[in-house]
């Protein structure tokens, strides 16, 4: 038997572990090989120590002390770190508190945004209202036309034309910053028809010089001359259109 084979079988060299022939063969090798014999001796000592440990029995002198020590360690691991920002009362981690805090945050932020949004909307509406009021008070409506001096010789003022024909202009706010004549006619005659030809286009075609006049910035001498020469015919056209109900009827 060689040393390598012997060292593999050393830990089995005891009664009942090996065949008789192998045991005798290993015994002969251990008797003749000093190194393997030393190895076998060390294995025997280790086995003796292990069997000694098996004989030791556990002993608890003070069970209460042990329990207290364990609990102390557990508590120590759970303890809040004192003196830092992370030190919080225990109730802050309760679900009830966390839900309540979330609801409170939602209500506070929600009410702020809602209140602010409503107010912003009111301000926008007020601005719109004032803008419309300003537009209706500017010199683009009938009153503005009158103020600008659109008083044609031997004719009625264009601004009172609707009234003289018994038409109630219900919404003075429709006038925006466009040509005063166009705005007035739009108000007097309503929206353009479906034919694509607007009332202003129609009148501009017939009275191009008159349609070019902007009276919301005052009237100069040239414009006065145009008004004087073409104004009356223009008013007759407007009156005729109003009576017919607009360009569509004229078609």
């Amino acid at each position, binding site marked *: 038997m060689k040393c390598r084979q012997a060292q593999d079988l050393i830990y089995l060299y005891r009664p009942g572990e090996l065949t008789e022939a192998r045991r005798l063969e290993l015994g002969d090798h251990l008797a003749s090989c000093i190194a393997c014999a030393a190895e076998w001796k060390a294995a025997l000592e280790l086995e003796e120590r292990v069997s000694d440990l098996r004989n030791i029995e556990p002993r608890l002198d003070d069970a209460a002390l042990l329990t207290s020590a364990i609990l102390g360690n557990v508590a120590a*691991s759970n303890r*809040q*770190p004192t003196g830092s*920002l*992370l030190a*919080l009362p225990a109730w*802050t*981690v309760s679900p009830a*508190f*966390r839900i309540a*805090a*979330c609801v*409170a*945050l939602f209500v*506070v*932020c929600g*009410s*702020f945004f809602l*209140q*602010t949004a409503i*107010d912003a909307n*009111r*301000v926008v*509406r*007020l601005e719109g209202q*004032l803008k419309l*009021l300003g537009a209706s*008070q500017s010199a683009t409506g009938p*009153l503005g036309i009158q103020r600008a001096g659109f008083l044609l010789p031997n004719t009625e003022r264009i601004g*009172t034309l609707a*009234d*003289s024909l*018994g*038409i*109630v*202009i219900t919404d*003075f706010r429709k006038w925006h910053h466009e040509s005063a004549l166009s705005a007035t006619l739009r108000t007097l005659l309503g929206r353009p028809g479906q034919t694509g030809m607007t009332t202003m286009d129609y009148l501009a075609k017939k009275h191009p010089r008159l349609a070019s006049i902007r009276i919301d910035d005052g009237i100069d001498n040239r414009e006065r001359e145009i008004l004087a020469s073409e104004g009356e015919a223009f008013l007759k056209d407007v009156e005729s259109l109003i009576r017919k109900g607009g360009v569509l009827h004229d078609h």
Partner: protein
Amino acid sequence: MITKRLFAGTLVTCLLALWAPGCLLEHKVKTTINADGSCERTVTLDLGSKEIPETSFPLPFDASWDTSWTKSGVSTYILTFTKRFKDLEEISREYARPADSGKIKLDLRVRETFRWFYTYYDYVESYGRFTAYTLVDPHAVLTEEEIQRLTYGDTSQTLKRKKEEWVARNLYEAFYLRLEQGAESLRDTLLTPASMAAHKEEFFRLLVGYTGPGNELHDPDSILREESSYRGTKAKMFSSDGRFSDDGLNAFSEIAARTFKSEAVWKLRDSVQAGWTALVKMMEGGGTAGGSFTNSVVVPGILLETNATDVQGSSASWKFGTDQLELRDFEMRATSRVVNEWAFAVTAVIVLALLGLLILPLVRNSRRSLSMTRNL
């Protein structure tokens, strides 16, 4: 001359008054509301002499108001009444008192509403309806929308004419009441109040040349002449003192007899004259004798809502005349908002605290998990 102002002509006077505001007594009323709740109210009148005029506006002669005169020109003076109110309730109380029946009833309410982040100030002031034309409800002639539009300054000619019709109906009512009383005392079987009532509307339409809503009314002077045997003549229907002339009474009786189908009307000459006097009296009490008003309010914070026609920053103002008070109360509204900075600071602290309480336990737990992992 006075007949020219009657019926159809009445509103012409109003228009003239509107277009010539310099001829009218202008009242400037300014209310300043401060964020601390205190207020100041100033009433200013530009006068041609150092005499307090008779006006429909209830001038504050209370000793609690400071009154001062300032010379503004050679013969013009500014009369100013000023009062400071320590809180909003005090100013509201000031105008909650019963008003003089001959004066415009003012109602002023300022309410402060605390809404944590913002405090809202609601200013509502109304000048009560003030008119001598109380016999016919405006709704009998005008719709609510038309009343609203006329009150807030719509100058449409058609609406003006409809209002003119309402005025004419009031004047006619004052006149007709006397006529009806006369008929009652006459005890004529053919001219009873009931028989007159059947033709009341017809008679009105005839007297003013009524042709439909929004159409122009005619001067009774010409109607009386044209509808009677005086047609084509130059007979005066009214004398210079505003009473019926003899010709006018004849013409009237002729038309009335035809309309009411009774010659007994000829016996009502005194009632006709009394009716006409009542009509003239009513007409003199109406119109724009009260002058014009410029009411402005300066509210704290940002202006959110108002029905004012002029807004300058946090100041809102309204300009109107007594003719705009004839149909309904003139209500002026303004709402403003003041930011409560302290509320924002407190809220920020609370929000940060809540966020901290929500986030820190999470941070702590994650740290502990980390250290336990390290120990293992």
